[in-house]
């Protein structure tokens, strides 16, 4: 049989009909086989890919790429004239489209509840503009909103001290929650029966902020 194949190959070779690699696609697998029998065939896939399945029965190879892409499949076979090579490109479909996450809910509805709102500032932050914001949060519509909803607002100097003259532990804890955020800043946390829960939002106050914009931030957290 082998002799026959060799003879056949030689015949083809002599006829100038060198074998070609024929690629047949079956689903995601490709079957690569020479158009004519070859002897001592070996397969090489480039670039090397451990996930690239090759089933070789000596006559053909089943190539099953695990992902989209292109590879060179090299068939090396022996003839009397020496070692020959055939190269074919195997491509599996189009590249997988990028995974697109579900679009975010344009207006996520946070869980409604009471909030602890803390504004931390440095002493020198107090300007006429910021002072008006603070007073508006304490009197008028913004204050009424906070009161009606049961929210708790504290406006604290970041270096506040307690009765013992040491830094107020509560203020220190809030300052740590800033995580490097510049002051003046507002932090909004869950209000729990035990006190304060998870911080839901925090941001630095800007010159454009007013009582209404701070209330809006509270509302966005469900407050």
């Amino acid at each position, binding site marked *: 049989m082998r002799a026959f194949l060799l003879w056949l190959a030689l015949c083809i070779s002599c006829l100038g009909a060198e074998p070609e690699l024929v690629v047949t696609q079956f689903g995601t697998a490709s079957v690569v086989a020479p158009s004519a029998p070859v002897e001592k065939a070996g397969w090489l896939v480039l670039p090397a890919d451990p996930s690239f399945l090759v089933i070789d029965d000596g006559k053909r190879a089943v190539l099953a790429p695990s992902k989209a892409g292109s590879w060179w499949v090299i068939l090396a076979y022996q003839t009397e004239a020496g070692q020959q090579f055939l190269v074919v490109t195997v491509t599996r479909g189009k590249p997988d489209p990028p995974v697109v996450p579900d679009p975010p809910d344009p207006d996520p509805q946070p869980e409604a509840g009471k909030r602890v709102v803390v504004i931390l500032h440095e*002493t*020198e932050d*107090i*300007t*006429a503009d910021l*002072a*008006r914001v*603070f*007073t*508006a949060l*304490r*009197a*008028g519509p913004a*204050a009424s909103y*906070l*009161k009606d909803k049961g929210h*708790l*607002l*504290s*406006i*604290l*100097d970041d270096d*506040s*001290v*307690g*009765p*013992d003259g040491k830094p*107020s532990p*509560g*203020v220190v804890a809030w300052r740590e929650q800033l995580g490097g955020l510049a002051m003046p800043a507002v932090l909004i946390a869950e209000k729990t029966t035990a006190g304060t829960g998870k911080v839901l939002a925090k941001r630095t106050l800007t010159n454009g902020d007013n009582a209404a914009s701070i209330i809006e931030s509270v509302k966005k957290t469900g407050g």
Partner: protein
Amino acid sequence: MPTKFDNPAFVDADFPRWSEYTRGDNGAPAFHRFAAFEDTVPAIPKADWPDLAAKIEAEGGGAELLVTRIMNQRNEGSCVSFACSQAMQVVLARQVGRDAVTQLSPISLYKRIGSSPSSGAMVSDGLEEMASRGILPLDTPENRAKFGNGIMPETGFHTPFPPDWQVTAAKFKAVEWLIVRSVDGLVTALLNQHPVVVGRSGHSICYTTPVYKDGQLYAQYVNSWGSWGFGDAGFPDGFGLDSERMIRSASNWAFALRSVVVS
């Protein structure tokens, strides 16, 4: 609707002419060791004052909105301790909210800075004492529930201190303040909505808000004479106005209170 300027008696009030008056401000100290507002906070240019005051008015008011009680010193010369207590309550209202303010007992401060019911005191002494030992809560049902016997009435120089009063008073101490020595410094402090305790005409009051009328500057203050003055901030009375002339005399030695103890 009546305005603050409707009754001229409450503009540049001549305090000694009023029946409520008991001389209580004993003047400015010859020496002091406190930091000056003018050396610490950049003065807001005078040209900007009217615009900033108009913004305060447009938003419904300034620090007077943080007043939670009109106090009444009655016939004791304790105005300094009343003005100091009022300033502390204003700052407390900003920190914790109007509803959460602990009402304070001015007499608990005056007992330490005055020598008799009518001796009066110096504003500087009031500041030093409220910063070092603090002020006790007022005797109210809420404060009794919260502080037990660590409370005192509003007036009554001879009322004894409760036991261990210092522990409770330490919760109501001034932490940051600056001495005001000029009109520029005083108005800057008011535009930044820091209450300013001043003394003038032998009486001490708490300035809260700069106000303009017909291009003229005034400082609104909260007095400690009960139902005296014009109404504002939800109160039927309690407030007065000082023109720039009076502000100038009051700014000789005053202090702006910026923060208090956080319990």
